[in-house]
């Protein structure tokens, strides 16, 4: 993932060089103003959990997750206010609505929870949509850009879907599959980065954010009588942010 970080920081530095001759003197107003911010960027997660459980009183299976990072695009829109809290600190507070691409989770299935019966592969997708209250503090040190930190808390909806298992050997007949399911969670995120005032109304920023999605869960398969579908108890996502902010 470092390449995303490098390319985003590089973009921010280039934009700083381009705009520094004409707009570097602009500063956030001392009174409050409305702001709208659009954030885009790549997200990755290495969430995985091995699970062994009974689907019926006699059918037990192990789901062994593969060790593979997932990368996908995420986007967020924030609407709120911006206010200069002190000579050096600018604060932002707003309501953010975000959505992500699909984290693709996969692995192998051991029938009877025994590795000698590794007879299926599986895969499914998880994506999140969330609404959160987000705050941000930026430090104005009269540099060419301002460092910032952010935090948010809200409600996230993790949609687990499109579970599919594929036999590895011909003898293993296809099974009924776990159903799609949406899980509601308390979600939160912490971020940090740099931003640059391009004009009296526009800012551009870049940063990194660590977000916790909470849990995801697939629904029961047809004829399953015990437990639910596959679960992930913790999904932590890493986000590289490219932020475009408009203030009144």
């Amino acid at each position: 993932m470092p390449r995303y970080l490098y390319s985003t920081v590089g973009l921010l530095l280039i934009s700083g060089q381009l705009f520094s001759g004409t707009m570097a003197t602009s500063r956030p107003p001392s009174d409050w103003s409305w702001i709208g911010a659009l954030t885009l960027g790549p997200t990755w997660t290495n969430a995985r959990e091995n699970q062994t459980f009974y689907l019926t009183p006699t059918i037990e299976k192990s789901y062994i997750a593969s060790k593979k990072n997932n990368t996908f695009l995420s986007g967020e829109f924030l609407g709120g206010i911006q206010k200069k809290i002190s000579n050096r600190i600018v604060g932002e507070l707003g309501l953010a609505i975000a959505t992500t691409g699909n984290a693709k989770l996969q692995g192998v299935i051991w029938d009877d929870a025994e590795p000698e019966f590794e007879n299926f592969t599986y895969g499914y997708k998880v994506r999140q949509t969330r609404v959160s209250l987000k705050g941000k503090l930026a430090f104005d040190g009269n540099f060419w850009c301002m460092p910032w930190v952010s935090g948010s808390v809200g409600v996230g909806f993790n949609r687990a879907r499109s579970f599919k298992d594929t036999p590895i050997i011909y003898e293993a007949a296809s099974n009924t599959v776990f159903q799609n399911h949406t899980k509601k969670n308390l979600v939160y995120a912490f971020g940090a980065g740099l931003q640059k005032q391009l004009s009296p109304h526009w800012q551009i920023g870049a940063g990194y954010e660590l977000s916790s999605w909470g849990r995801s869960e697939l629904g029961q398969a047809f004829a399953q009588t015990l437990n639910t579908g596959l679960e992930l108890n913790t999904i932590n996502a890493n986000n590289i942010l490219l932020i475009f902010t408009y203030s009144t």
Partner: protein
Amino acid sequence: MNKYNTKLILMLFFGALLSVSVHASKPLWLFTPLTQTTVSVPSSGMSVVKYQVLNQSKKTHTLYLKKKLGIEQSVAPFNCPNPFTLAYQQSCILTLVITADALIGDIFHSPKICDQGNPLQCYQPSFQNSLVVTKVPGFLVEGTVSGLANGDSVTLQNNATNTLAVNVNGRFTFSNTLKNGDPYSVTILKQPVASTCVVTNGSGTINGADVSDVKVSCTLNTTILSPSLMDLALNVSGATRVITITNTGTTTATNLTLTFPTWPAGTSDGTTCGSSLSPSASCTITVTPGASATSSCSTGIAPTAGVIQITSTESNPVSINVVVLDYGCIYQGGYLFFVNDATPNNSSISGKVMALTDESTPYSWGSTGGTTAISRTDGEANSSVLNSPTYPAAAACLAKIDQSYFDWYLPAICEIGDGNSICSSLSLQNMRANLYQSGIGGLLGGTNRYWSSTQKDSINGWYQRFSDNLQEGTTKTIQYNVRCARSF
């Protein structure tokens, strides 16, 4: 890095390798076909397919056949019940009865067996062993194979075109169907390695129904050494005789070995047998008798037969008993006094023997009156005429059961001696010359007289007095000794 760390790293490395190696793919329960699994079933027909189902999991599973129209599970004895529970490494025979009438289209990729019938855990045979059922119009030619050895196979052919390799005993079905009135002819295209198969009920004409009674019976290949004689009797200084050994089995006899006994002086042998004998092939053994009888039996004892032993790697040993006989030997229930050495040389001699003892009481020849028992050389013919209580001497011999023989007769006058001119002119081998003169047989001398079965006239019968070889006729009603004889 110290020694301890090196060991630890090596252990972790090989431990990791081991943990990777146990990951594998194999079915929880394994299907092994016991019959053909690709079958053609005529529209109104049925077929049976069998699998052995083995639980390879350490967990016990209770299994159900996934239902499919036209495929029923047979729960007859020795088959898997429904459902069937298998512990680790337990198996049973899953028998599927396919009824074409009930099938909806053809069947592929069956059968599926599920834990508790639950679709969350089902397994099926491998692609090669999948049940493939094709409904076909017309009539089938089917039958059974039996006697096939494990791992062997026989290739059958119907009408010289439809070939079928069968590798297990049980039902077989030719894939091609025939129309009503078509001929069918099942033949063996390729015999098994370890056995030989024959077809019965293998040909005919389709007559409005499947043909289901073709039988292919296989028998393990064998080597059977069959001698033409199990017992051979020869005459001293007589004809050379031949025993033929034939391999009547289906495989070659190897390491063929003949072991000859210690022959009596002068007797020799020869053979054409080599070290092996092919199926249906023969070889011979010849025995040429010398002047001495076996175990000096001519002194009035039974010979101890010499034994020719024949062995091969593949067959059980075969024994042939050989005796060289002379007058006086006890053979076939009595003392040998007459030898016919002119029998075919692939058989034993024939001859006549005298009973070991006199009858316990004297008998009269019979009442006065003419009979046709007038042969001087054929006592057997005379006795058959005299088979009545009216002729006590002959009747006593005819009723005699001795040494397990019951074909005794009263000998004719020239079989007993040659004292009169008629007998002496015939030079017939007789009891007096060949036994009495040698002191063999316990015949009474002196004035004792023995009845013959030869009638002299309506009043008199011929008798023999051994002491002086007197042969004369006298009144039939007088009681004389009786010594029976038999021929072999």
